[in-house]
């Protein structure tokens, strides 16, 4: 349906453009008068009348036309009780700020009760969308041109073909040119021209693929064969991309598991504390991110960056509190720690529910993390997950450094191997315990910060990860950081490889069964280690 509209509008538009190019622009005063008239025309019941009004606005040479259409599309074009048309700037809350639709100057607040949206139905929506798309083809703004060029793929027909080739000739932005010519090629393939097939060879864009696969069944054998061969190579190419994609999915899921588990690998693996509150420490990290964004409205990116140290600190402090308040009394009684920390996790959850809210909190994804990195038309890597993946690796590396290179790491290992001995050598075991636990908790906080970009920030965040975390740590071999890394990533990949053909649920089940069998094959995990924790 959009197709006809776009074509119709295009003709109108081309016409109007050519007209305006000669005509002198009249004085702004009567332009505004005219514009107001055009807009008033929108404020009618019948949708067909609105449609005409829209076309009228398009034909008017007013450069504000696009903004008006956009506003209409967004439902921000509203009429007051006295029939005046205004632009609603923000329609949340009870009082809405409005602006003059022509000059755009603010008119202050108005009660939502006194405002009525200029309603549109879906037909109008499509009309508006395509209209805007076509207008954008001529917009000076490259982004808009690119966007509307994207939309033209597979939408071209003979009437659009002509002006399109002119546009390609006149266009200087390579991307737009590429898209437009692809759009043209698709049209050519659809109309059975061999040239189009050649042009589309190797293109991974779905629309291109669709066009070719249709051409394969076309009546012209030459074209059909060419299309078939082109399609073949494309399919081949797609398979490879599919594989890469799955691998990426696996890695990113794995990185989440690693992040969630790595803190546990320290508190549980090294200290032998079965910390059921680990998940809630992650939750604290996530909430810190949210809090930061509340403190710094408008700059989610900065808030997120700041949340990294903040989240670490918050979780670490909470960890210290737990260690001092409870765990220190349970030395050498790992099971007791399970009970106590489980109690703590309950308390923390309910605390968040009562203090903040039982509802999930919105954590905004900053610009530089949203969207995805486009490798080609068939493969694009989501940015947020890529960042998380990188973050996980950095955290891991940092921990490795701390454990291997710093005094703390040395002390920790000493205390782990032989507490009494370490003591007698003047290592302050209690202090080491506090530090270790704080470190583990802090890392949990970091995991929370990362997770806030992927999933719910709510009271249940922790529970959803605690089980998996233990699985990963144990699968990797308690007390072995490398084990945790390998375990996390491999489990992630296995899961994602299985998912397409086994389905999400079955995949998870298979992974669990795999873990069970693996453990009974290697009772101490991937990388067994000696030491207090290993005796569990």
């Amino acid at each position, binding site marked *: 349906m959009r197709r006809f509209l776009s074509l119709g509008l295009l003709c109108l538009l081309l016409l109007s453009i050519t007209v305006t190019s000669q005509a002198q622009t009249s004085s702004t005063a009567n332009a505004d008068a005219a514009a107001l008239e055009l807009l008033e025309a929108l404020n009618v019941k019948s949708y067909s009348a609105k449609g005409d009004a829209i076309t009228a606005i398009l034909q008017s040479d007013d450069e504000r036309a696009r903004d008006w259409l956009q506003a209409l599309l967004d439902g921000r074009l509203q009429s007051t009780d006295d029939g005046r048309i205004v632009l609603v700037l923000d329609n949340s809350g009870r009082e809405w700020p409005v602006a003059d639709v022509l000059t755009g100057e603010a008119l202050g607040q108005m009660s939502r009760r006194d405002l009525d949206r200029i309603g549109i139905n879906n037909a109008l929506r499509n009309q508006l969308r395509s209209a805007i798309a076509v207008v954008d083809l001529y917009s000076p703004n490259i982004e808009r041109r690119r966007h509307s060029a994207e939309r033209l793929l597979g939408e071209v027909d003979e009437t659009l073909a002509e002006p399109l080739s002119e546009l390609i000739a006149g266009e200087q932005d390579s991307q737009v040119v590429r898209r437009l010519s692809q759009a043209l090629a698709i049209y050519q393939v659809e109309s059975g021209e061999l040239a189009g097939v050649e042009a589309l060879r190797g293109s991974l864009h779905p629309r291109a693929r669709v066009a070719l696969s249709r051409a394969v069944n076309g009546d012209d054998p030459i074209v059909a064969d060419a299309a078939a061969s082109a399609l073949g190579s494309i399919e081949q190419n797609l398979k490879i991309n599919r594989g890469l994609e799955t691998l990426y999915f696996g890695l990113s899921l794995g990185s989440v598991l690693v992040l969630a588990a790595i803190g546990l690998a320290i508190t549980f693996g090294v200290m032998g504390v079965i910390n059921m509150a680990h998940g809630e420490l992650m939750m604290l990290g996530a909430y810190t991110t949210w809090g930061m964004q509340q403190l710094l409205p408008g700059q989610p990116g900065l808030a997120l960056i700041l949340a990294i140290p903040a989240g670490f600190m918050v979780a670490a402090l909470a960890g210290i509190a737990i260690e001092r308040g409870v765990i220190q009394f349970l030395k050498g009684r790992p099971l007791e720690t399970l009970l106590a920390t489980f109690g703590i996790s309950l308390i923390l959850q309910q605390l968040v529910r009562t203090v903040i809210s039982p509802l999930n909190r919105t954590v905004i994804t900053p610009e530089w993390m949203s969207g995805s990195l486009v490798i080609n038309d068939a493969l694009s890597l989501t940015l947020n997950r890529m960042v998380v993946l990188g973050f996980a690796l950095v955290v891991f590396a940092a921990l490795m450094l701390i454990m291997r290179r710093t005094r703390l790491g040395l002390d920790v290992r000493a205390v782990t191997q032989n507490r009494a001995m370490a003591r007698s050598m003047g290592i302050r075991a209690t202090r080491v315990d506090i530090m270790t636990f704080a470190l583990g908790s802090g890392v949990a906080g970091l995991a929370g910060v990362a997770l806030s970009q992927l999933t719910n920030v709510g009271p249940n965040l922790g529970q959803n990860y605690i089980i998996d975390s233990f699985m990963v740590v144990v699968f990797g071999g308690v007390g072995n950081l490398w084990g945790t890394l390998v375990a996390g990533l491999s489990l992630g990949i296995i899961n994602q490889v299985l998912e397409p053909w086994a389905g999400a649920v079955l995949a998870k089940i298979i992974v669990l069964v795999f873990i069970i*069998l*693996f453990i*009974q*094959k290697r009772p101490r995990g991937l990388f067994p280690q000696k030491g207090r924790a290993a005796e569990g």
Partner: protein
Amino acid sequence: MSLLQSLTQRDRVFDFMAPQDSPVDVRHGPILYMEDVTVSFDGFKAINNLNLTIDDGELRCIIGPNGAGKTTMMDIITGKTRPNSGSVWFGSRHNLLNMNEPDIASLGIGRKFQKPTVFEVLSVFENLELAMSADKRIFPTLTARMTGEIKDRIDEVLETIGLTALRHQPAGILSHGQKQWLEIGMLLMQRPRLLLVDEPVAGMTEQEMERTAELLTGLAGKQSVVVVEHDMGFVRSIARQVTVLHQGSVLAEGTMDQVSSDPKVIEVYLGADDDEAA
């Protein structure tokens, strides 16, 4: 990694058809026979082509500096550690290398650990009861009753190891020496053909040592006894045959005097006698 694989895996199987304790055959030759046994823990050879034979009813002392492989040798005999190569026979019928600890134990090889390990929360009496040679399958164990002669036997052993007064105490509260005794007592309850005794007198007073010496020598003849000990005095007091281990293989063998006069031995071991004995 498949389930099937792991089920058909050879070692550590629940051998439900494990050999019933057939009598140990010592008609021709020794009760314990180790040949060319080698064990290496990631590279380091703890036992290196060890050859050792113990005759029936013999009492043998094994000495050697720390790390000579004494304890490892016992681990091999009792099935705790599997050698990389070599063969270990109990009598001329049983190849110990394809048996697990319980089989070997029920075959009649008892072991006393270097660090005394008794069941701390169980009473002295119960410790002995568990050690007693009996049908050790599940249901017999479940339905087992305390009969008169069992009690007599336990009392007897309690007598021998002088713990009668403490019979109802949890073993956890015993002194180090007493634990040693209890463990020896547990060995006696097992009625083994071969006793492996690892440092029996560590932490014992003079008198206790003497009692232990009597005990062990008393045992010899009825049973074969292998004693690993650092305390030269004690060894001298009981030893007829002495084997010196060094770096995982036999350095010298013979009576105490022969051994102690052996230059090689003096060089590697007795030279450091004083601090070893300490």
